[in-house]
């Protein structure tokens, strides 16, 4: 069972947010994406960071991913 930063069990939607965030991070480091995908993935990751940060699912810096 996944937990948030305070040790609380994640809701169904929070599990999805955390999964999407991780997938965007994986995409953000790929070198084979066309500009339209690479830049929009980073933009999407910057937005998704707000969700996981606001909901206490993750708190980290993303500059090394260019975000």
């Amino acid at each position: 069972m996944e937990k948030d930063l305070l040790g609380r069990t994640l809701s169904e939607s929070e599990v999805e947010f955390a999964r999407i965030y991780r997938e965007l991070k994986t995409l953000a480091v790929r070198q084979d994406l066309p500009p339209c995908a690479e830049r929009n993935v980073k933009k999407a990751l910057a937005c998704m960071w707000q969700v996981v940060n606001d909901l206490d699912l993750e708190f980290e810096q993303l500059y090394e991913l260019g975000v």
Partner: protein
Amino acid sequence: MAETSDYWNPKNETMSREDLRTLQHLKLRRLCEWAYAKSDFHRQRWDAANFHPDQLKSLDDLQRIPFMTRADWMEAQAGAPPFGSLLTTSRDHAIRYHTTSGTTGKTPLRVLDGMKDWEWISEMWAYGLWGFGLRPSDVVLFAFSYGTFIGFWGAHYACEKIGCLVLSTGSATTESRIKSIIDMGVTTVCSTPTYALRMWQCAAETGIDLANDSRVEKLIVSGEPAGSIPAVKRQLETAWGAKVGDTAGMTEIGSIMIFECARQPGGTHIIEDHFIEETLEYEGDRPVPYGERAERVVTSLGRGFIPLIRYRTNDLVVKIPHTSCGCGRTGDIYQGGIQGRWDDMKLVRGTNVYPRAVESIVRECAAVDEFQILLTREGVIDEICVVVELKPGREDHWDGLCKRLHVDLADAHEGLRFKVEQAPVNSLPRFELKAKRLVDKRPVAEYSA
């Protein structure tokens, strides 16, 4: 569900104080580890003070961290221009550059933001704007110049995020902004309190009554303490026929850290899942209890490009418990918002004078259009004069108003005698950004060896 929520982030805006402190401690620890590892500025200062992030065993250990001041920042910036040793990552990762509004001719404080920082800046505004009642159906006009000064930039993007229709009026004249407000059915206007008054005056001069002729129902003000001064708020709400919501932020943060909720509790909630706001004695390190005047010292848990940790703001605040408001938020409140700057205080013949306190009294007089506080020295005696410009057609109010101001200003300042003078119509300066209504013409003391 989303549009019916009173809160932008219900999970954290209503979390228990205990959980809030746990969250703040966790984020603080991670932020400090990041700053120590990546910023020469922080590492060198913390090493010199024998502080290491490992010492942050609880939130109380925050007090181990040395304070950071604007002077520290400026010194670092001057030592390695243009950004100093504060950056935690390559400037290649930045997408935005902003500066303090600053005084002309002086080097401004410079900041950079990465992609997620910039989104976070609008996120903080979204907490405040949503909390005051903005929704996707709103049409929002920004009376803002859109320069390098951070101002309402974050609010603009927050409104886009919320789904509002946004009107940016960067270089527009006051007249054309008023026309847009009417023509586009604007429901919300964002500006400084001073400029909101100016727009209303300008509209009235052309026969437009904004309270009846516009659809504006919310004014979001920022940039000056006046947004929480009851007399100014009342005047604006009557003039516009709209609710006024106060907010406050700073370039060093990039966004707002406090906002007034829709219940208008006479103060502004702190966004405590993103900021740690200490209230300490001015220039000291003793925590000040609820209800007493203090200096706010801020730690931002947001922008990581230039971490802001235990930053002395010089802002004068009075913190009161969140329970003072019935909205359900658990973020504490600054009563009356940011009440001014500690160094705004002027000493006149032994009495402390705060511009905000003077403004509170002057704005109680509905006939006042604009005013200025003038400090002079006559011989060895300091004089304080409030120069008042009346609204056109209100000249016959002068005698009564003058007497009332003499009495009320003296009563509020331990009997200090104020001069009160009338200025010709349209002779005093008007302001679009931060109003500067205090002019200190007293000579600076010079000492020779």
